[in-house]
């Protein structure tokens, strides 16, 4: 088991381009923010619930959008998606703008 984990990590750092590793780091950060909010909620309670949902939801959504961007721009996935990587980034931005408005309304 540890051998395959080490193998995975070595393969990861060796073969993955810097751009994708940056997105991965951002995804880990988003997940971390979501976990921190969840832990805080478990300790302190859910009031105000809409604020918690807005914060947690936005962290989860950022994670998801970054994952989508990573999938679209990974050169190994090129045949699954039509179009170039720039389109993926434009979609990423549009999704975030929509998310911004929703979360801003939800925070209360």
């Amino acid at each position: 088991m540890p051998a395959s984990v080490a193998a995975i990590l070595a393969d990861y750092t060796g073969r993955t381009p810097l751009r994708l590793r940056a997105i991965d780091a951002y995804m880990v950060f988003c997940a971390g923010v979501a976990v921190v909010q969840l832990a805080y909620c478990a300790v302190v309670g859910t009031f105000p619930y809409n604020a918690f949902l807005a914060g947690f939801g936005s962290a989860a959504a950022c994670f998801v959008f970054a994952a989508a961007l990573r999938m679209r721009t990974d050169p190994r996935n090129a045949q699954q998606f039509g179009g170039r990587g720039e389109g993926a980034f434009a979609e990423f931005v549009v999704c975030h703008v929509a998310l911004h408005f929703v979360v801003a309304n939800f925070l209360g």
Partner: protein
Amino acid sequence: MGLSAVDQTSLLRTAILGLISIVAIGSRLYSVIRFESIIHEFDPWFNYRTTKFLVNHGFDRFWNWFDTAAWYPLGRVVGGTLYPGIMVTSAAIYNALHALNIPVDIRNVCVFLAPAFSALTAVATYLLGKEVKNATAGLFAAAFMGVAPGYISRSVAGSYDNEGIAIFLLVFTFYLWLRAVRRGSALDAALAAGFYFYMVSAWGGYVFIINLVPLHVLALVLMGRFSNRIYVAYSTFYALGTLASMQIPFVGFQPTFTSEHMAALGVFGLVQVVAFAQHVRTQLPAQQFAVVLRVAVAGLFVVGAGVLALLTARGVIAPWTGRFYSLWDTGYAKVHIPIIASVSEHQPTAWPNFFFDLNMLVWLFPAGIYLSFRELTDNHVFLILYALFAAYFAGVMVRLILTLTPIVCVLAGVAIAGVFETYLNNRTMSASSRVSAYVPRIAVLANFMFFLCMFQWHCSWITSSAYSSPSVVLASRGADGSQHIIDDFREAYSWLRHNTDKGARVLSWWDYGYQLAGMADRPTLVDNNTWNNTHIATVGRIMASDEDTAYELARQHDVDYVLVIFGAMLGYSGDDINKFLWMIRIAQGVYPDAVNEQAFFNDEGQYAIGDSASETMRNSLLHKLCYYRFGEVMGPQAFDRVRKQRLPSRVTLDNFEEAYTTDNWMVRIYRVKPLDNLGRTHHAAAAF
């Protein structure tokens, strides 16, 4: 120098869609042409009243509106208990038209909104058909959708109800979802989430979308078709869509704790895990990883379902409620929630209804499903799932034929497009073929053209005869064939509006609450929202009690007028005496000591209203209010045309005073007498 072939095709398609739109709008205008531009039925009157409020007072006051005139004395938080989509849409169109200095009345905007959106629905169905097969199937699907009676029933001019725009949003959201899955585009998924939000704001049936889309994803995962495109599409859709849907106050936080939304959340988690596993798979040898993946997915699914079941059992997650639960357990509502069971559109569907509403599409539909199985792309899996579940729900509840209609139209379009494409394909014919070689083609094509013409004729006839009645205004034919308009409802509401105090409270059965509020503009005790069963049971108890108890209860609730619908003179069978049993059942559910259903049947067990009626029936307030003085107008051979029984010979009424009875005795309004000046009971005062 004509147009190129591509341009010609696209011009032809646009022209065809334009004609379909015209037919769709035109076939919905029967009632406006026959009667007038009026809001129909019951629920649309509430939507109309709130739209007027929104237009007159602005969005902020609308959003925070607390209506003291409904559910007296409880009031109703209107802003938080409605789906604002249709009101906001109408108000936006109204304001846009007024900004262009076109002074359209808000009533006309409301009346014609549903036909306008039906044209958009036909276009959306075209897009959906084009997405799953090709433009031919799309055009056929659009043509079917434009006239299918299953959809027309809720979208005629004047039927200002949520379904009018919701079906358009349903079809368009599904189109965007399928496009997002096919292209793996986060933008399409974000658009789908945006229209899903619009759908959530418009209709409670959005639950169908948020369960069908995850089911589609789950089916694809289980079929081994999971791909990165599905991850991108579903995750974006769910993340944006759920957050957006919680912005509607009526939905609130339900997506986080009710069973109706748990499937979406579960599949969201599953999709994250599967995507991660797929990614890791590329790092490991194939075989051992495939096994690990399947075991892990299955195990996680079982664990997740187990946790969900545990949380539901512990009460943390709310179970399927009310209307949605009765879709699974169809016998539940009749026993436990009589209000849901009493609504006629919640009854199970009879076989003729399917043919009535869908005509020949009923047999093209299975052909379309079969063709979908043969091609079985990701989109076709969705169509099959949608067809299955929509068919089940349509069989359980009559009103859900509405959600079945789009998929039937799409699949029928696919099937019939296949037929026409095969038999119109000239490339298989050589140039020197004899005329007889064309005979099979001509025979088949002529046959199907005949079917299509009959379909159109059927739909127009059904629309004209069955679905274009305003319900507020009735029409009948006299003996010489002349039309006789029965306008009693508006007559009564108009009388109330002009002859009573501004704040006079009117008690009636909940069916008429919205119409009373909309046309008579008076406070009501219960209305079609039916959110408070106890209050409705109290009104039922008042109607079912004897005169003195009813008088006391009515005075306790500050009732000024009582309104009953009475169809015995005309033979109108939807009147209050026919609904009386439901009033009794609902009242009995809350006041079992005060109201007993069996007491209203006579000794032979019949539902009699004449002299052979049981004493409880003869003493009940509703019986008295309906039959008071009716014998005078009918003469010695007095006869109740609906129940087909002789009238009671003597009806006395002391605590209530007849205020108004309409022309055809359909609506009767009584005033609750104030307390006697000399402190006597009203019976004593009458005997004096």
